[in-house]
């Protein structure tokens, strides 16, 4: 008779950057079912926004997540600007785009390092985080802080980019590109990495759309959907296409993120070449009123904000729908039939960010 075992995977686990519990029901070595348990990082931010001044909630929006903090602030600022009918200057839009792509770079490099660590390939993990430091230095030089930069505000940006800033970013991007080109063949061609990721966590195209997958998880299954094509900030003026792969497994998702790193470097260079002159801050008067929905592309997928304001200082409703919340059902589908040793690789391949999910 085949026996079933229940193994709790998490919430503390060396592979996950943040706490998530997956209760795995195993038969021999294969996973039959996985039940997630969340709630370890719930801080009640949506309720806090109903009692705080809407200009101070911008700082709260930044602190929803540490890795993708700039995107949350950007989406929030864009929502309030649209409710109040403020037109942000073109230079501010370009600056926001450059900083968003720097944030995407550092998030993908962090994930690549964690994935290498999940296989036990520690030296690759160290080398990836070493070249990530070039991005963090560029972020600190131009925005003021490595994480939680507070450089975006309602009406534009609080800081301007000087010529020394652009020169510093371009120098660091050159060093980053040399480092990335050195580790790219390791990720794509090393036989041990291929053995662990090829064929792990298959998510077919129909299942991906039906279960609501977003971001690199969706693009690794062959669907070309990228919210940057909506043209918010300055993305409408830059030239790029979504990166897609067709093999639907964890290897495809890893290649999508690697290629997106190169795409981000190219986008930053394009934006710096086309950077216009002008002011970066527009004065905003009045209080927001009405409701709005806004979507942007975070490193992990599609972020949706719903804001409802009623003309007073506090917002009536602030709803965040994060990519990891959308990617959880595909994860449960992918884990069925996997071996126990493949579970860390599959669970990491959707790039979980539990702080965003639970706010």
């Amino acid at each position, binding site marked *: 008779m085949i026996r079933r075992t229940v193994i709790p995977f998490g919430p503390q686990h060396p592979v996950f950057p943040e706490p998530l519990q997956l209760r795995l029901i195993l038969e021999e070595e294969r996973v039959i079912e996985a039940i997630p348990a969340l709630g370890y990082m719930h801080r009640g931010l949506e309720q806090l926004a109903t009692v705080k001044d809407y*200009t*101070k909630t911008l*700082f709260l929006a930044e602190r929803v997540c540490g890795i993708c903090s700039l995107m949350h602030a950007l989406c929030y600022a864009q929502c309030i600007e649209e409710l109040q009918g403020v037109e942000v200057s073109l230079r501010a839009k370009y600056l926001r785009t450059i900083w968003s792509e720097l944030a995407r770079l550092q998030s993908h490099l962090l994930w690549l390092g964690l994935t290498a660590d999940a296989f036990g390939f520690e030296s690759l993990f160290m080398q990836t985080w070493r070249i990530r430091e070039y991005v963090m230095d560029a972020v600190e*030089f131009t925005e*003021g802080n490595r994480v939680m930069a*507070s450089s975006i505000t309602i009406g534009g940006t609080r800081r301007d980019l000087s010529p020394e800033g652009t020169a510093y970013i371009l120098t660091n991007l050159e060093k980053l590109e040399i480092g990335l080109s050195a580790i790219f063949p390791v990720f794509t061609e090393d036989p041990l990495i291929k053995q662990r990721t090829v064929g792990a966590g298959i998510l077919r195209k129909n299942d991906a759309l039906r279960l609501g997958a977003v971001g690199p998880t969706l693009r690794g299954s062959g669907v070309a959907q990228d919210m940057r094509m909506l043209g918010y900030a300055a993305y409408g003026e830059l030239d790029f296409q979504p990166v897609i792969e067709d093999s639907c497994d964890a290897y495809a998702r890893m290649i999508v993120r690697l290629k997106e790193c190169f795409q981000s470097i190219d986008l930053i260079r394009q934006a710096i070449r086309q950077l216009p002159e002008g002011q970066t801050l527009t004065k905003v008067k009045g209080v927001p009123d009405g409701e709005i929905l806004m979507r942007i592309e975070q490193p992990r997928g599609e972020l949706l904000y719903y804001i409802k304001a009623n003309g007073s200082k506090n917002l009536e409703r602030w709803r965040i729908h994060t990519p990891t919340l959308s990617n959880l059902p595909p994860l449960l589908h992918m884990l069925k039939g996997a071996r126990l040793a493949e579970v860390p690789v599959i669970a990491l391949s959707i790039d979980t960010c539990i702080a965003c999910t639970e706010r």
Partner: protein
Amino acid sequence: MLEMLGTVLRNLLSPPATRLYPEQRREPLASTRGQIESVIENCIFCGHCQRVCPANCIEVIRTEKTWSLDPYRCIVCGRCVEVCPTEAIVMNRHFRGPVRQRVPLTAQQDSD
């Protein structure tokens, strides 16, 4: 085998990848957000900084001419620096060091 030998020699002969702290310290970059400091001589006790602070960490008492800030609630966003009309609050580049007890930063203007 030869490739491994090349890697070993390269690693032996090149400088270390990390900074040798504490002999070499990293200087903060030019526009890094560090800590908030008060230049109390310029303060007119208008209370703007107290109103805009997102973390509610500044307290201004006009009658006693004191200005105090809780540096362990402060998120160093810089809004107080932006709204101050007389430049009585500045931000420097150095991070807070570790301490054993949390002491608020208080400043008193001499009444003369």
